[in-house]
């Protein structure tokens, strides 16, 4: 009897220890709720480079005493996924995020047009040119990336690189070019810019040429760059930051800014905005001020992505040039987005 009681007690103790360990391990997933609930928690939807985003948000957190919880985009969903999430939350009446820190601008404009952004004229953005700020103060553009054509100079002679985007649809080039799925990401914006500048007819002709001449469609810009590195293609439509990080890893890669047929290439700024109805939006303004500041733009320019500052003084300070860029207005690009995506689905995706 005594031995049975002792054995039962030891079993209870053993299971108690096991369950306690599991609970404490799972509790490692949750921060100290009491401490956190005393500080405002600001959820940031962030589609800039994750390592960079973590670092600057962490700096802000430690300096301001606010809890910042980022939700990063994924390679699968990209910025589009974050935007759709914001839209879904707004439609369900339960926005969870307060700040959007996006690696591009066109989806941010889309949110603004849907009325999902809260106007805020940040004093830290006063030195940013007006072409990179919404007239109604719903978004601010900073730190741009360029759309480029990447190639391996050891396999593809630089003089053979086309000078205009439209030339890519020709048989000589399309067959050896990789393009990220134009339904998502910056490629989506790029195709929309083509439609905005060239008109729908020329835009569709471009897409048809790409398809008929055997362009390789992959699931992302970095995959397009990897395809060049692996020798599966010779040219890749991508962004500057994808080429920079590949070069940092030792890849033999170079890039060219191609002409949009109006004397310049497409530069896509990152963007910062306040989400309407998000929790603690009053406190989040301090975060917006920080994200649009010259300090963050400088950090982005000095990061692996080497984004080009929109502030001319900062460019001068850092010795960076703003490439000859297309005159297309970002609002015009946003206007052309739906028509461009429809054409992409009809011509390239089917």
């Amino acid at each position: 009897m005594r031995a049975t009681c002792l054995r039962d007690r030891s079993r209870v103790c053993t299971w108690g220890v096991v369950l306690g360990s599991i609970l404490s391990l799972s509790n490692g997933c949750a921060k100290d709720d009491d401490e956190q609930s005393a500080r405002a928690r600001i959820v940031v939807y962030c589609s800039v480079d994750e390592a960079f985003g973590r670092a600057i948000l962490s700096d802000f957190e430690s300096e301001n005493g606010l809890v910042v919880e980022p939700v990063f985009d994924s390679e699968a969903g990209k910025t589009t996924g974050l935007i759709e999430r914001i839209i879904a939350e707004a439609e369900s009446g339960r926005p969870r995020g307060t700040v959007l820190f996006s690696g591009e601008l066109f989806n941010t404009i889309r949110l603004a047009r849907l009325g999902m952004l809260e106007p805020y004229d940040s004093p830290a953005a006063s030195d940013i040119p007006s072409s990179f700020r919404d007239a109604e103060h719903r978004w601010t553009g900073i730190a741009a990336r360029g759309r480029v054509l990447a190639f391996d100079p050891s396999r593809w002679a630089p003089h053979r690189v086309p000078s205009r985007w439209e030339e890519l649809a020709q048989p000589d080039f399309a067959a050896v070019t990789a393009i990220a799925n134009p339904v998502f990401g910056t490629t989506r914006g790029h195709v929309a810019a083509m439609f905005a500048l060239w008109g729908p007819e020329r835009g569709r002709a471009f897409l048809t040429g790409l398809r008929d001449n055997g362009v390789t469609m992959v699931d992302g810009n970095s995959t397009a760059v990897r395809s060049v590195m692996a020798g599966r293609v010779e040219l890749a439509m991508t962004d500057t930051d994808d080429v920079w990080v590949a070069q940092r890893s030792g890849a033999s890669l170079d890039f060219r800014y191609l002409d949009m047929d109006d004397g310049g290439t497409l530069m896509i700024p990152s963007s910062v905005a306040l989400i309407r109805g998000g929790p603690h939006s009053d406190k989040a303004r301090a975060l917006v001020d920080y994200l649009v500041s010259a300090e963050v733009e400088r950090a982005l320019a000095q990061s692996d992505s080497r984004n080009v500052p929109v502030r001319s003084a900062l460019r001068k300070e850092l010795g960076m040039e703003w490439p000859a860029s297309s005159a297309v207005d970002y609002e015009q690009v946003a206007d052309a987005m739906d028509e461009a995506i429809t054409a992409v689905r009809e011509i390239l995706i089917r």
Partner: protein
Amino acid sequence: MIRARFSSAGIRIVYGCVVAVGVAVFVAAVAWPTVAILWSALRGVPSSSDDLFGSRQLTLLARTMMLSAAATLLAHVLAVCVVFCSWPRTGLMQGRVWLAPLIALLACPPFAYAFGWDKLLPMGWGGYVRCVWTWGLWAWPVPALILSTGLRRIGVGPFQAALLDAGYWRAVCHVTLPMLRGYAAFSLLIVFVFLFHEYSVPHAFGLQVFATELLTVMASSSRLVDALIPAALPVAATGVMLALALAAWRRLVLSSAAGIGPSPAFYGRRTNVMFFLVVIVSWLVPLFGLGLRLGSIESFSDAIGTYGGDIASTLGVAVGGGVLSVLMGMGVSAWRLLGRVCAVWALALGTLPGALVGAALIAAYNVEAAAPLFDHWPIIMLGHCARFGWVGVILALVLTRAFPATLREQARLDGASTASIFFRVRLPGEWPFLAAGLLIISVLSLGDIATTTLLRVPDFSPVAIVVIEKFHRFEDGLLSALCLILVGSGVTASIVVSAMVWIGRSRLRSTS
């Protein structure tokens, strides 16, 4: 007397709680999300004009099936080489020293192998060949274990009888292999189904298959119904294959075994060489490739310094998912018929594309009332349970079925209740197997990308997703370090699982 009554009542209450929690977990992780996504599908009107049977859908289906079929065949070729080199002297299931490497292969996330092989394979090997190679060399333990089990069940009697009139290989081809048809069919279907929905390896090689397409569409759409159209074909294909696999399994279970396999008397040198050669090639070589990508050992300190919190959280959530899955299994296996229905249901959900499982959880819990669950890490734990909970349910059912009926009757005659039988008779012998199942589910959860991509919560990035991001940012050092940390977790778990299985078998032998 009073203490005994109280103890008996206490055990009944605890057992009741375990069963209730298990059933609740099944409803939360499997039943309700299934209902929610079906309801969303029936209620919504698609806005996209994508054809269900458009050329893109059919191209994706053909490509995915071709890759999965080729990899399945490769896995079975390797498995046959290993299994028939060791038979009839012993069976893989009997060799406890062999179980750990087999489980380690499966326990490590497949993308770790993909990144390792990517470094080593010749440049001329395109994405398709790389994908088939990596899949085949990752998945071969599954057919090896199934075929080995089949060999044990059919026994050596027919083979030895055939040897009297024919040579070794004639006996194998004309006697043994035909008897293994059912096991081979089951194995082929199961491996095919799991490879069909595997995301990380095709993604690592830049291939567009159904899993990558579905995740991209679902992650980029705010309307669930629009994302369900591209999911229709792969779900239908999965349903057909799963039904065939279950039918094959049922035939195997119903057919009587011809005999029991021989006890391992010794391990022949040829056996060991073949087995370890295949293990080295399929496991150590890609890990060597990962090591080459590492660059410097400082990457580990960088990885832990930057992502230490995420690593700990990922492990904690994965273990939590394992706990929920095992509880779910214990709960639903309390009823025979319900247990079978739940097992099939959980397996059906688990074999669907991970993106679809994530979408089901979003459909179920993206409401105000579920905010404490949906906005934080518990939803990811539930996601792991939804994807891999079938392991816990099937394990619990197998253990329940394996418990001798005579022992149960004897206990009842002695006045023991169901709860007492469970806690005092079954659990002492079965807990190692339950612990092993918990660990297996946990390591499988570590490699889950598709479901966790959709269920992003603030301030928690599962390590698998971080690895993919590092891949796309060409940060090979961090990528390799994080992969090797996951591999280390898988290896540790596989050793513990092997030990648990050995302990469990020892306990079962001592009680029978």
